[in-house]
């Protein structure tokens, strides 16, 4: 309880700190929104020009970017500071975190308030509402619950991927570069049915870099395309569980990496 209270107080302070530069604060909200809009634009252009993509109709495809973007927005809000941790390591701030009486992971998350998450979340919720209103599916309590669980699973999976990159950054600060690419890949290739890609490429995006589990598989299960994804149905349906397992694994990796971290002072 005490930890939650401290986290809340720090978050409030961080929020006030962000307000110090008002124009930057407003621009950061805008950037969160426009970044998400870029994903919508890309998906919309593809949907308009290439109808019936991968055997999915446009309302079904829309559920993929909606799920991914909502998962991403929640990730940015709660766990997004793992992305860009290379700077914290390069500037030696991680050494300070190590001697404070709070877990380093939590300190990283509380290092600043992610203003852009406000914009991210606003656009993502808007897109999800739009996708659900256009959907012809019967949104039963079970389906809605599964969708909520999938969004949370997607967030955890994204957090796991960025935590893994952060672990590499502890050893090689330049590894932060991979984080930027990862974000780009998730935005570009995580928003439409992967069955339009050759099998080897979709296989890479499933088992090499598991972005198919963030939104594509959950949306496939929800819209009845779960048997055409190229993986067993149960695996596609278990996407949220995979997200949870990946995040727990990433946290273990983080703990191990932190134990082996060597700062400039040895």
């Amino acid at each position: 309880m005490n930890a939650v209270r401290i986290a809340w107080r720090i978050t409030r302070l961080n929020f006030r700190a962000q307000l110090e530069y008002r124009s930057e604060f407003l621009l950061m909200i805008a950037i969160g929104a426009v970044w998400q809009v870029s994903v919508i634009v890309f998906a919309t252009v593809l949907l308009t020009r290439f109808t019936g993509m991968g055997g999915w109709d446009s309302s079904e495809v829309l559920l993929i970017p909606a799920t991914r973007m909502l998962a991403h927005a929640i990730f940015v809000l709660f766990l997004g500071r793992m992305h860009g941790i290379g700077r914290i390591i390069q500037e030696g701030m991680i050494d300070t975190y190590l001697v404070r009486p709070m877990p380093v992971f939590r300190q990283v998350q509380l290092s600043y308030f992610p203003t852009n998450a406000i914009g991210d979340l606003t656009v993502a919720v808007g897109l999800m509402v739009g996708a659900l209103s256009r959907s012809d599916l019967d949104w039963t309590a079970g389906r809605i619950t599964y969708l909520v669980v999938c969004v949370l699973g997607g967030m955890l999976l994204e957090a796991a991927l960025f935590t893994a990159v952060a672990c590499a950054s502890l050893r090689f600060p330049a590894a932060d570069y991979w984080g930027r690419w990862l974000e780009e890949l998730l935005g570009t290739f995580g928003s439409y049915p992967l069955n339009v890609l050759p099998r080897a490429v979709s296989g890479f995006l499933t088992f090499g870099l598991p972005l198919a589990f963030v939104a594509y598989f959950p949306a496939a299960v929800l819209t009845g395309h779960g048997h055409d994804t190229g993986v067993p149905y149960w695996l596609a349906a278990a996407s949220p569980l995979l997200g949870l397992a990946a995040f727990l694994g990433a946290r273990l990796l983080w703990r191990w990496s932190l134990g082996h971290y060597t700062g400039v002072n040895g």
Partner: protein
Amino acid sequence: MAVLHAWRSARVTPLGELYAPPRVTAALIRLTVQVVLVASLWNGLYQQTGTTAGLDREQAVTYAVMAVLASRLRELDQYAGRDTVLQHMHFGTIVYWYLRPLAPQRYYALRALGEQLYGFAWALAGLALCLAAGVVRPPGSAAVAGVFALSLLLGQLVLYYVMLVIDQLCFWTLRNGAAMLILVFAQNLLSGVYAPLWFFPDWFITLSSFLPFQATLSVPLSLYVGRIPLSDAAFQLCVQACWVLVLALFTRFLWRRAALRVVSQGG
């Protein structure tokens, strides 16, 4: 002597890259995978479609792959070297730019030139490999290749000036992180990095024609793939040249105004 100094300034960021092999390896892997993914995506999308928005499959793949290669032209991480205008403004070290025997605008231009040449070497090597592998198709004629090269040069100049304006913003706002991200977004969207501009609605294409971004990438690539015919090339090159001129004058004005705002410690 001036050439030697210019060479030393221009090579700073590329040397920083070459001294960090993991970064170079990462860039190589990223570029390769991105090219494969993008080519696969557009080939996959065109499987059930013929020509759309005036682009056939080969043109769309060539455009998309070359957009990925062009993204290498200015992607170096100056931040790691603590030499961005943002960092200098934050730490107060911007004053040193005004104390050296090299004008800040010249130093900035030389650094950018070095980065762009280094990035150009990457893009050129990537293009040669993609041409050899048949991923992209060669230009239609020698004239198309020549016009493309000229248009790409003008496009890079426009991109340089646009990024300079955002950096110069720091002299007034101290921070430009959000503005830079918005610029990256606008640049990617309006220059056709996300998807060729030809796929967008007419109103969007009209809107983007009033902005400098499409001059950076969309015009050169459209000339290369033949979506803009050679007969229209002169007009497009003139538009690009106008953007270069307008932005050059504007940034020159901003450099002068910025110099008045720099105060060294103690006044």
